């Protein structure tokens, strides 16, 4: 054992808040869902209903279709970005990242805005939104591996007589496959639990399990059946996740970590054409819907108008009759909620990261535990919290902090992921260096390890802010009338038939998109600095 032990109280002191938070706001609601909410009648009703299995089938096939389409669409930009250098390359990456971070509701609104009316509220619109939304997952996950895949490896195959197509089939594709299946698993999980996109662009009858959980609980008041469906979905998610992990373990290649193969300017004219085509097409597809958002926010059946922007403080069907959503209030609520959620997520996430890094192996339990809320769907998280904290003295349904806490629960894993890597990288070596310079273990930790947290924490805070701004699933359960957040208001307004109400929905979606874009710029800026 090393004589350089930090005080025993350090790790417990760090992890107590994250652990208690996780136990209170995730594990307890989860247990409630499992033990209390599910009953025999509800189970029989859900499992015996033909509709349930049709919903399971729809959920599955649209997720598979979305995943396959996303992979197909994402491969070309992934290749162009990984292999070629061209003007606007970095911007294109930022744009795709921004699209990925976009709230699901905004994404749905954007697709609704850009597609012709005949495709609105069809399954095609759902698939289009899913593909657009997740293309960045493929570009980033597959692209990252592709960038590290030496061009010379493909060259070696070419010198051995392989044509471009064969090089891709026999060398590139097999090496990208683990990354592709990782991307596929992520896309599948996202689309399998699709909620915001379906609520906004889907028809009334288009329902994933996630939407059905929400509908049963909030429209039909069938808590028990909603709980059964939530658990059914969790079981499916767990199965897919397990399969994906084992599949990746089996397929993983010990790809030596090589330095980045530096992307080259395309030299052949055909290459230049292909690169330009793919880059322009990708940018158009990624940005077009957002331009359409803005256009829709200033459109009326009679022509161009700023009325929706001007009268954002009300949402009336006609004088005196309100739809119950105040767009400006929603904006204010979202910002307040975002500040609190970000604060909570950053503090809890930072404590957790420091604790996990300091605890070494034992930290993995907390690390894995904090990831659980992502694996569970947001709807399930919100639903569980709502039916758990309903009795005194734990009746927190009306507490102002319950929505921020719900958001933080979803955001903390991202904070931990963003910060933990940095901490782990500096942990043993830098502390040792500090020790040889005369710092006590605690002091070494405080002066050498902790300061490394600040920069990633800014990035983490930005992510948490983006997550809170866009969170829809948990909020659908936790938010109370009169305290709607932007995504709730957007969904509500876009669901109306009145053109001014819809335009206001597009206004809010535009604002939310702009806010998310700003967050991505912050992330970009802070992530780039250390490199340059």
């Amino acid at each position, binding site marked *: 054992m090393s004589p350089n032990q930090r005080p025993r109280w350090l790790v417990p002191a760090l992890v107590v808040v994250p652990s208690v938070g996780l136990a209170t706001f995730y594990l307890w609601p989860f247990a409630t869902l499992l033990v209390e909410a599910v009953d025999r009648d509800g189970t029989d009703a859900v499992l015996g*209903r033909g*509709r349930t299995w049709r919903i399971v089938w729809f959920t599955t096939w649209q997720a598979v279709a979305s995943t396959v389409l996303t992979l197909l669409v994402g491969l070309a930009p992934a290749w162009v970005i990984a292999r070629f250098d061209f003007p606007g390359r970095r911007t294109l990456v930022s744009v795709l990242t921004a699209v990925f971070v976009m709230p699901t509701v905004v994404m749905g609104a954007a697709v609704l805005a850009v597609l012709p009316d005949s495709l609105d509220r069809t399954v095609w619109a759902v698939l289009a939104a899913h593909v657009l939304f997740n293309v960045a997952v493929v570009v980033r996950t597959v692209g990252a591996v592709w960038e590290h895949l030496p061009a010379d490896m493909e060259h070696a195959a070419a010198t051995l007589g392989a044509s471009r197509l064969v090089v891709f089939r026999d060398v590139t594709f097999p090496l990208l496959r683990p990354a592709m299946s990782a991307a596929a698993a992520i896309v599948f999980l996202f689309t399998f639990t699709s909620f915001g996109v379906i609520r906004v662009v889907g*028809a*009334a*009858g*288009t329902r994933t399990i996630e939407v059905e959980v929400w*509908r049963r*609980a*909030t*429209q*039909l*008041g*069938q*808590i028990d059946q909603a709980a059964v469906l939530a658990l059914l979905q969790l079981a499916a998610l767990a199965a897919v996740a397990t399969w994906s992990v084992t599949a990746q373990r089996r397929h993983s290649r010990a790809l030596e970590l090589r330095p980045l193969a530096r992307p080259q300017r395309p030299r052949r004219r055909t290459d230049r054409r292909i690169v330009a085509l793919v880059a322009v097409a990708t940018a158009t597809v990624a940005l077009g819907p957002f331009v359409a958002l803005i256009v829709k926010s200033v459109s009326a059946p009679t022509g161009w108008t700023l009325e929706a922007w001007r009268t954002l403080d009300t949402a009336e*069907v*006609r*004088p*005196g*009759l*309100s*739809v*119950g959503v105040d767009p400006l209030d929603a904006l204010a609520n979202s910002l307040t909620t975002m500040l609190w959620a970000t604060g909570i997520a950053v503090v809890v996430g930072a404590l957790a990261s420091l604790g996990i890094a300091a605890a070494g192996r034992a930290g993995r339990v907390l690390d894995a535990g904090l990831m659980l809320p992502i694996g569970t769907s947001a709807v399930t998280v919100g639903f569980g919290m*709502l*039916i758990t904290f*309903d*009795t005194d003295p734990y*009746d927190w*349904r*009306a507490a102002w902090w319950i929505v921020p806490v719900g958001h933080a629960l979803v955001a903390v894993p991202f904070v931990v992921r963003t910060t933990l890597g940095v901490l782990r990288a500096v942990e043993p070596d830098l502390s040792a260096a500090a020790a040889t310079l005369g710092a006590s273990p605690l002091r070494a930790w405080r002066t050498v390890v902790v300061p490394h947290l600040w920069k990633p924490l800014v990035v983490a805070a930005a992510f948490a802010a983006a997550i809170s701004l866009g969170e829809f699933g948990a909020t659908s*359960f936790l938010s*109370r*009338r*009169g305290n709607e957040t932007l995504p709730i208001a957007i969904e509500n307004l876009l*669901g*109306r*038939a*009145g053109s001014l*109400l819809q335009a206001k929905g597009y206004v809010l979606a535009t604002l939310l998109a702009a806010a998310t874009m700003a967050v991505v710029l912050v992330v970009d800026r802070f992530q780039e600095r250390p490199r340059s």
Partner: protein
Amino acid sequence: MNHRSRALAAAAFALVAGACASDGDDTTSDDTAVATDDTTTEVDATTEDDTASDDETGTGDAGDAPDGTDASASDSELADSITLVAYESFPTEGTGVNEQLANFTAETGIDVEILVAGDTGTMLSKAELTAGNPEGDVMWGIDNTFLSRAIAADVFEPYVSPALADIDPEFTRLVPNGEATPVDRGDVCVNYDIGALETAGIEPPSGFDDLVDPAYAGQLVVQNPATSSPGLAFLLATIDEYGTDEAGGWQSYWQQLVDNDVAVADGWTAAYYERFSYYGGDRPIVVSYGSSPPFEVLFADEQLDAAPTGVVESTCFRQVEFAGILAGTEKETEAAMLIDFLVSKDFQAELPLNVFVFPVNENVELDQAFVDYAVIPETSRSLEPAEIDANRSDWIDAWTDLVLG
């Protein structure tokens, strides 16, 4: 706790009924307040008797009594605002209803904030999820089709308003123990835009059967019965008409409606103001109220000699709407005062023109336009509350599968 308050409410109801029977005349809202005080004082006494074995005996456990006890103690102790949760078609400002609520504020010092909570089904489900820790203090507008769900979920704190004396017992039949308070009634009927049908050269429909005639393809917009009370009422009307047989029952009727391109909106407001052709939408036939035509006459931009919209009388379904104190509110006293006010003559008089429904208070005289243009069907359809209660969720499920896919 719950049993106890129910017993209390029952006792209170008996007392009120007795007191009112002896008074035997119309009570103004001021009198009502006084009556409240009197009866509840007696209820407290009853409490002590009933729970003699209880440790709390003699502590005057007024907190349990959902009533206006504290009103007499001191006005300054009243909260200065109260939240009325209502469905979307309840006006939030600028109408006679809102002026009346302002009068309530002037009289009591209690400001009434209206919280619009979507359509009835959505509003009720949220109330169920927040039962005991409600989003407001009083809820307006749970109708007879949804009422049993609200009662089963303990959404309301039972309360018997002294003002019930002016209300036809027909309407309190569903709430014998003060589970909620009837506030309005009406009929949900198929309405049509006379001008639009004329332009299209189509005769107004005469009943349910016409609506599945190809001549009426793409003309009708209805509400989703999962979220909307007129939507559910219309569904129940079709069930009343066609029955529940496998063949030829309501489901095959709805299949024909689907084949005839019926449109579905989430709620009445969206259907009437956003889809109905009279308001610029694309559908000349809409599920609305028997009282909709007079509204269009009274609020027309130019004077009309006849109603611009018509009602298909044979499709009407009887609707009674209720208000209740949301269980768990900290403002029970103020909530009770508001309930009393909501059934008072002055407030009820504003309902027809602003909420499209008829008053339940027998002392209200209807506006002449209503007498002239409103359709109050001779025999409105209805289903037994027990039957609705037993089948509602199955019917809605089946409807959803059938119509929304």
